[in-house]
């Protein structure tokens, strides 16, 4: 077991941000931690990273208690923050070397380790370059590399791709997934991008300080409903009759289209097309919609996650920073 959380709470004055959560994450799992802003996500992560003391309850990371063995916890985890934490006036190598010093990596292994992690994230040729000259995606990858430098057993990724363009997001993910394959590392991540949450083995959704759902992405999606097939035909009335006869259950009608629900949208669509065609009904258009994690999120929290993203001022700050507008 990599992460064991029991009845963990945290209050700020009279406000209880985390209201007694229980969570177990297995070794090698990629675990997604989702929730709207103010749900208690950041507070939980801060407690797990030993930056914040819990009010009550306990948690163990890689077998170490977050309160009594915080140094061991810190040694055993790597953290990649949402906001950049690199020193842009230093080279990639210097940033990594300083990390080795802080984590007391044995001197004789440092050069080798630095080279390895840079190779892993595809930045080996930029080792001696100033971080200032890196693109947003390269900086992110360098931060991932730095998080891995001291050989942690668990990697915490807090919004690893926020503010990056889709192409860069994909490339960051390629490297993170490669990591999972090659090292069997436990990854605990938060994200606002629902398509990224799909990469997770399991997902926990947090809201108002509680964990409101915890399952695989497929099971969570199943929770909100089945796939919906929408078929537009030349004769909707006959199509409804044919479909109901074949499916042995009622279907809905929406103008020229009929709507049928089923476990597997694609095969249901194929079957419907075949049946309708055999009945000499002209099929003009077919559309299959599967429930998304976004639907799950809205279903559970009553809010769409995108609206909740990083606050606009935060994002502006991050953007200005990444552009180097705010100079030191």
């Amino acid at each position, binding site marked *: 077991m990599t992460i064991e959380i029991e009845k963990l709470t945290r209050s700020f004055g009279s406000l209880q941000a985390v209201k007694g959560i229980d969570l177990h994450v297995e070794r090698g799992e990629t675990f997604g931690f989702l929730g709207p802003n103010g749900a208690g996500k950041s507070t939980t992560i801060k407690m797990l990273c030993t930056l914040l003391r819990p009010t009550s309850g306990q948690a163990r990371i890689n077998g170490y208690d977050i309160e009594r063995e915080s140094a*061991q916890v810190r*040694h*055993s985890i790597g953290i990649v*923050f949402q906001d950049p934490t690199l020193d842009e006036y230093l080279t990639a190598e210097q940033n990594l070397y300083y990390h080795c*010093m*802080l984590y*007391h990596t044995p001197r004789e292994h440092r050069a080798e*380790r630095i080279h*390895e992690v840079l190779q892993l994230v595809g930045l080996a040729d930029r080792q001696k370059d100033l971080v200032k000259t890196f693109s947003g995606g390269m900086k992110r990858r360098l931060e991932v590399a730095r998080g891995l430098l*001291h050989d942690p057993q668990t990697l915490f990724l807090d919004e690893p791709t926020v503010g990056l363009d889709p192409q860069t997001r994909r490339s960051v993910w390629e490297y993170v997934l490669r990591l999972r394959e090659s090292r069997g590392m436990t990854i605990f991540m938060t994200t606002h991008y629902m398509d990224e949450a799909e990469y997770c083995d399991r997902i926990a959704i947090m809201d108002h300080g509680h964990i409101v759902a915890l399952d695989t992405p497929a099971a969570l999606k199943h929770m909100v409903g089945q796939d919906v097939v929408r078929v537009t035909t030349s004769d909707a009335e006959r199509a409804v009759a044919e479909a109901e006869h074949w499916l042995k259950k009622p279907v809905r009608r929406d103008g020229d289209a009929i709507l049928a629900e089923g476990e597997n949208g694609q095969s249901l669509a194929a079957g419907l097309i075949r049946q309708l065609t055999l009945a000499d009904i002209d099929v003009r258009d077919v559309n299959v919609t599967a429930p998304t994690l976004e639907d799950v999120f809205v279903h559970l929290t009553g809010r769409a996650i995108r609206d909740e993203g990083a606050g606009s001022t935060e994002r502006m700050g991050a953007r200005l920073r990444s552009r180097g507008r705010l100079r030191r």
Partner: protein
Amino acid sequence: MIETQPSTNAPTNTSGRDIHFFLIDPEGIAMIWRRDIVRLWRQRSRLFGSIARALVWLFALGFGLRGSLGSIAGFSYEQFVFPGVIAMTIIFSALQSAISIVYDREFGFLKEVQVAPTPRSTLVIGKCLGGASSSTIQAIIVLIFAPFASVTLSPLNVLGAIVAMFVTALAISGLGVVIAMWITDFENFGTLQNFITLPLYMFSGAIFPTRSVPEWLHIILFLNPLSYGVNAIRGMLLGYEVASVPYDMIILILFTLVMLAIAIIMSRKEV
């Protein structure tokens, strides 16, 4: 590849002991210090700027006022003000360097240190030493211009002056770290120069002799750590009131320790 690499720093090895119980982490401190030195070199324009500022003060004050002022205890005004200009170099750059913690907080690097398995004292002590070293380096460069102020250098007084400069720089950096822990917003960073750096410099005896000043100014001079620094540096360079130098040094070292303690206590509240 990585999988075959033995776990070089698994939490089970000795370095994984709960480091929060150790008050001082020399390697962590060395990292913070080293970063400051590297950055000093990377941002050379800042270095040149501070030396240029010192020379402007030296020439404007030293030569501008030489005619109107008589000798001070047997020294010409430019000789007298030269150690003051060195003290100015120290206070400007030591404060700036220590307060860069505020920038590190703003730009995120501080987080990297905060989540590392190293005690809170690492940042405080490292920044104090880093600020002290980088400002001493700048002061040494200014020291090279001593002949322009008719100050003769001997190996002994250069050595003594460097020690005095470093101890002064430690005290000022310590003060800077406390200020950095105290201010959370870097917007009011600029006002700091006007409300702290400049008054500390002006009311330190750097540019006037402290013997015959009004009583209220005496109190300020007594409370201002830079006064002791200026005295010590002047004593070492000119032999002016040299007897008080050990006393100045002890005050500066005590001041540094108090500042470090305050800063460490303040930094515990962070996050």
